[in-house]
């Protein structure tokens, strides 16, 4: 079982990003995903900056993958995407079918991100035929759903052609909109956002009127209010999951990485906080918790 760091979903200043990835280089993580996946207006790091980080991390012994934008609406965003498709060195995580289109035309391998709708063995088989070498399961699917897909003949016949990865720690990306909710929370329109996401390094909390944390606003993305945390489910992933993904948080990401690594076989279970959840994996509502 390998561990990965997903792309940073929030908008952090350049120095914070560089410090974070320096820590990643020194950490026990196996795989690092780099790139802006949420909003094309966030340009603290440009393509060349990400490539520089990628080289640094590769030299530190990490497997590096690039990660593409999820909701692309403008021609300028497609031009930026083509830089990632044509980077020539690192495998790309496609978070939109636009990326798969470019990669497929060039016969390049790709990773299908969690926002690519692969819900069954037939879609999985077709994606593998297009060049998919790793599949990140949609966040809303359960252990049982994953086992069911992998148990079908269509998948088991090609199981050596792709790896499976599961989003296992952090606030889950749950929706993308044309509207920017962080700008809206400051009474601004998206066109006049003044890049206000940079003031919220872990997004903005949204609570119900009786105090339950329901969502986190992260620009055009809406995240789970609770932090997804499958640390205690790692033993149930044996034989199903090749790579366990941790999504970078402003604090504590590498401590949690170590806690995850210590509990692969269930030897060091963790007590979860009230704002952790694991419902999706257990086939419950995503915000629920269970054993």
């Amino acid at each position, binding site marked *: 079982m390998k561990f990965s760091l997903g792309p940073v979903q929030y908008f952090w200043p350049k120095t914070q990003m560089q410090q974070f990835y320096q820590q990643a280089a020194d950490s026990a993580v196996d795989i690092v995903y780099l790139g802006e996946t949420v909003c094309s207006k966030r340009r603290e790091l440009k393509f060349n900056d990400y490539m520089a980080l990628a080289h640094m991390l590769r030299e530190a012994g990490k497997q590096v993958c690039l990660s593409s934008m*999820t*909701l*692309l*609406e*403008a*021609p300028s965003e*497609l031009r930026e*995407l083509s830089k990632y498709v044509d980077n020539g060195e690192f495998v790309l995580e496609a978070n*939109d*079918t*636009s990326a*798969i*289109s470019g990669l*497929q035309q060039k016969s390049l391998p790709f990773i299908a991100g969690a926002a690519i*709708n*692969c*819900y*069954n*063995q*037939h*879609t999985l*088989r077709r994606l593998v035929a297009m060049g998919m070498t790793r599949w990140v399961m*949609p966040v*809303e699917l359960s252990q049982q*759903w994953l086992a*069911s*897909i992998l*148990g*079908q003949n269509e998948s088991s016949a090609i199981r050596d052609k792709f790896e499976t990865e599961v989003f296992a720690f952090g606030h889950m990306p*749950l*929706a*993308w*909109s*044309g*509207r920017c*909710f962080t700008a*809206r*929370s400051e009474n601004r*329109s*998206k*066109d006049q956002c003044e890049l206000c996401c940079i003031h919220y390094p872990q997004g*903005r909390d*949204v*609570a*119900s*009127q*009786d105090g*339950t944390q*329901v*969502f986190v*606003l992260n620009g055009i993305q*809406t995240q*789970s209010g609770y932090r997804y945390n499958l640390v205690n489910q790692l033993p149930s992933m044996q034989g199903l999951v090749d790579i366990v993904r941790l999504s970078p948080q402003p604090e504590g990401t590498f401590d949690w990485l170590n806690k995850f690594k210590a509990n692969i076989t269930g030897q060091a279970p963790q007590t979860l906080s009230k704002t952790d959840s694991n*419902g*999706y994996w257990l*086939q419950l*509502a*995503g*915000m*629920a918790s269970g054993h």
Partner: protein
Amino acid sequence: MELLCPAGSMPALKTAIEHGADAVYIGLKDETNARHFAGLNFDKQQLTKAAQFVHQHGKKLHVAINTFAHPDSWGHWQQAVDMAVDAGADVLILADIAVLAYAAEHYPKTELHLSVQASATNVAAIDFYRQFNISRVVLPRVLSMQQVRALAHSCDIDLEVFAFGSLCIMAEGRCYLSSYMTGQSPNTAGACSPAAFVRWEEKGDILESRLNNILIDRFAANETAGYPTLCKGRFTVGEDTYHALEEPTSLNTLDLLPILYKEGIRSLKIEGRQRSPAYVAQITQVWRAAIDTVKADPERFMVQEQWQQTLSSLSEGSQTTLGAYHRKWK
């Protein structure tokens, strides 16, 4: 420019055709479509009758099979495609790559449209889906009019846009908010904020709406209480309690009709397969009149006050918006 109307039942379908729809879209009575509600939709026999009725009137029948197939019951989606083609559907509206591929390979003569649930918002994403022989793309409700126009200019494929109805503010097919709260999402269960999870509670003068026990909104006596669709509730961010994502409002693009017409948008889709035949009748009548007016003289097109009044009265919270088509909404 086609007027494509919703029907959740045979009476709604007949009403739509009789009031001027060019085509009607429907779903089957199971989890293969994104409006999988009790008492709604068509079984095999009704589907055949629907196709006959529509064809007798020289109109077209679209069948939405636009959820994502489950691993253990892939056969349901396959059978849904077979059944729809067999019953005489003119068009299938599909989203799952596997279902698209199956339909393209087995029914090369059937017209396939890419469902809004496939979230194709740009030229390259549309190019990706062309390998499945699609002839039309239904655009998600996240694009501005400028972006719709840019797509119309850079694609040689037919485009369909949502013209009126409930407003999804997230890129459709990629929103898991509903399963986060209830375990059921449009992708997995064909429903958003399912009615089975809704609870209303009166607390003194306040009416509370809950979804799977999560408080979505509180209404004072003088407020109209709306269905607790989870993205349209009032929540607290920082010090403020407000509609953090979106107000309860409906999409209405009547004002954009001349532009949509000029840009060659092939079809205007009216949302609402879950609505009553009476609703379908009124909506269809207004949009038929509006489309006929714009076609007759696009330069002089004026939105009639009476159309707007009818549409407002049929809208969520009696409010309408241009949604993402209007840049400022974003």
